């Protein structure tokens, strides 16, 4: 039996961006506390599976490929750095590279013995960084940061606008830089020396300044910053509470993740921070004279997706505090590491949003073709 409430959640719709970012943050947290290659690969696979199942066709969702490439580059660089500068730990020497004689006091060496232990730990370390990157890329592909900013509570509205304007500066600067370079070629000037740099920097900066002045005028003309009779004290209270709450959450997260820091400090700090931030948001939302167009809704599916991420993170972090050795791949001495089997099962939870999240609706243009196809199907017996 299907109850109406469930039927509504299952309609194709776009999931709340915060749900996706919480889920991805959970996976990234899990990845950051382990060097177990099997677990890391499982996390990467789970993230990729969800992305392929629930990604909308938007320009920013194409950035997922870019994140994957960066992750591979990080892995390669990490291994290359080890080969060049790695430490001499381990007994299984694979090859002995020519070593540059440097004074011992420097604490650095170039070349020398390349051990299997060192190489494996470099790969595992690179894989860990790569996995974190893939998780961030997954969140980016499933819900653009711009949408996340839009979901910010009213008290943080100004911060969100500032960030989104700043983010839009980069692509515009790239365009302006290209124009300036073309212009230099059209003037027949070779690109060299300090004067060349000046010739490039000045137009780019002038362009950016002009645009920002135009944007500020346009925003003012469209009512940005109207206060609508909200007392200044209320606004300051809302912003203050929100910022303090968020800082407490950050500190709490650090306490949880950094091994050595007491977990007892981390969890209460996070909870208190969250409570303060929520109060701040509530005051801010009531105080701002703004309204919101088609706000993203938070329903059952959002809870499900966010909890999947939280569950994975909680399992990894608690194990990291109770039995850190089981999450380490242990390259010295060289051996095939034991797999913490319960954790493998928990990791599979990370892939559940592929079913929990509703389908992504097609864009308007596509929708029309689907409807006409559906009609054609209906007509043909």
């Amino acid at each position: 039996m299907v109850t109406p409430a469930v039927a509504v959640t299952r309609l194709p719709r776009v999931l709340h961006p915060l749900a996706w970012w919480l889920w991805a943050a959970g996976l990234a947290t899990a990845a950051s506390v382990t060097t177990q290659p099997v677990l890391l690969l499982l996390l990467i696979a789970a993230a990729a599976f969800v992305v392929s199942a629930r990604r909308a066709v938007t320009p920013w969702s194409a950035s997922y490929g870019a994140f994957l490439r960066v992750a591979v580059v990080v892995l390669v660089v990490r291994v290359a750095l080890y080969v060049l500068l790695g430490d001499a730990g381990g007994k299984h020497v694979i090859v002995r590279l020519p070593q540059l004689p440097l004074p011992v006091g420097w604490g650095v060496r170039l070349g020398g013995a390349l051990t299997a232990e060192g190489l494996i730990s470099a790969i595992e370390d690179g894989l860990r960084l790569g996995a974190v990157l893939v998780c961030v890329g997954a969140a980016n592909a499933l819900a653009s940061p711009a949408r996340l900013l839009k979901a910010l509570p009213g008290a943080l509205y100004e911060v969100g606008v500032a960030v989104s304007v700043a983010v839009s500066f980069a692509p515009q600067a790239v365009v302006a830089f290209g124009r300036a370079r073309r212009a230099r070629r059209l003037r027949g000037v070779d690109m060299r020396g300090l004067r060349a740099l000046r010739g490039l920097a000045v137009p780019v900066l002038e362009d950016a300044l002009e645009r920002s002045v135009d944007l500020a005028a346009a925003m003012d003309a469209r009512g940005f910053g109207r206060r609508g009779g909200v007392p200044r004290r209320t606004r300051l209270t809302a912003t203050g509470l929100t910022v303090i709450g968020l800082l407490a959450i950050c500190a709490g997260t650090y306490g949880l993740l950094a091994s050595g820091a007491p977990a007892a400090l981390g969890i209460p700090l996070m909870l208190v921070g969250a409570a303060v931030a929520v109060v701040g948001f509530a005051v801010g939302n009531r105080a701002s004279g703004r309204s919101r167009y088609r706000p993203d809704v938070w329903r059952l599916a959002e809870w499900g997706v966010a909890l999947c991420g939280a569950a994975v993170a909680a399992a990894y972090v608690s194990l990291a505090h109770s039995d850190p050795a089981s999450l380490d791949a242990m390259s010295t001495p060289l051996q095939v590491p034991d797999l913490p089997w319960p954790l493998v099962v928990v990791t599979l939870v990370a892939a559940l949003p592929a079913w929990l999240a509703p389908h992504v609706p097609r864009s308007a243009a596509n929708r029309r073709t689907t409807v006409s196809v559906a009609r054609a199907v209906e007509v043909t017996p």
Partner: protein
Amino acid sequence: MIVFDHVSVTYPDATAPVLRDVELSIDDGELCLVVGGTGSGKSTLLKCINGLVPHFTGGTLSGRVVVDGRDTQSHRPRELADLVGYVGQDPTSGFVADTVEDELAYGMESLGVEAATMRRRVEETLDLLGLSDVRDRPLLTLSAGQQQRVAIGSVLTMHPRVLVLDEPTSALDPPAAEEVLAALTRLVHDLGLTIVIAEHRLERVVQYADRVVHVPGHGVALQVGTPREVMASSPVAPPVVRLGRRLGWSPLPLSVREARAEAAGLRERLRERTPARRPQPPSAAPVATLRGLAVTYGDVVALAGIDLTVAPGEVVAVMGRNGAGKSTLLNVLSGLTRPDSGRVDVAGAAPAQLPAADVVRRVALVPQNPADLLWAETVRAECAAADREAGVAPGASYALLGTLAPGVDEEAHPRDLSEGQRLAVALAVLLARRPPLLLLDEPTRGLDYAAKDRLAGIVRDLAANGHAVVFATHDVELVAEVATRVVVLADGEIVSDGSADVVVTASPAFAPQVAKVLAPLPWLTVAQVEEALAG
């Protein structure tokens, strides 16, 4: 609705006021057109209406501007946002959100409009401006005409009583401009909005206006009246008006339709005559040759199968809608873009394979925004740098500038010059090396009629001195004035290539106003008609 009461505006550091003692009153539901040369104070007048002057631009405003009972001295632009919708010159620089729907909703969110009302207004505006097909597209992927309509829509959703538009069609090709103007006339007729619009290309709007305000500049008093009254004496006037004034038609025609009704006699008189043709250049070895040219960007074909030769003394206009490949063609000729296949030959070499210093001796390209080429602090320093780069005698570039545009202030910063003067400085800097081929990308963007006439004179002189000129443009009147040949591009292919009078009169989209009035006779400009009647 809008009352200017003894308004004077002086910007900081300026010696004289831009606007002096302006008295103006615009009624509810009027479409008011503001005309005038560049730098005459049109934009200042517009910005006074929603308080951007003086609250945002600085400077001092004396007198009072009152919009629907609200004084702009005491109301900042944001407090007028629900009453006055303002759309600036470049719509893209005012976009805050990243998709069409969010951009339309942004202003309403600031006003705190209820969610259900917002939803309804967004849907209505999408329909009104014909944007429903692109509702969830990112703004940067839209065409220029669509972007302009989104910018208009984004202020319409706030349900303002007044709409202020600063040159809404200057960046658009003729069909896109028609789209925007059709939307605006609908707003006036269906919703009773008051619209104040500044525009250089009068031929596009003057027939829709209820009232015209001519801003002469230099603080001279405004001239206000019905379009016919103001156009009878205004120094800025579209070709039909100039034709009507020359022939003493009364009432003065404002549109092609009105002019055609009065032109029956003129067509009869001109039937037996042929218009004076610009002398076709003597056939000589071509300066530039393109054979089988193809250019792709990723999987987008920008140009395909282009064959083109340009001879010295020719003035070739490249036309076509936005995105047809006009700029790419110029970029290939200037060596900025390397073709995927085909042969490019400019003065005996392929420009993309030469070092920059050798290319500029063969070909000069003035980009859409000439300011890109200028990076010195003063005009004199710019010219001196050009002399050094070109290896010519000091002062040569400045002397050249003197012949192109007399009276440009030596000590001025290039950014502070008018559009026309900036274009002249960029030309002087590039022409110092005497390249045989000159390329211009949209040279009339932002130019008023006077500056456009000067540009036409410069191009004709250059061609007479044996330069070949190729320019990309949407401006059919400039084409009628100067082009000896027209190449029309569509989807990266040449669809027609022939002498200007044949190509331009063959298609209504590219025909200048005089040609439309005198069709089917092949007359293109007012000057040709004047010459024939005088001779």
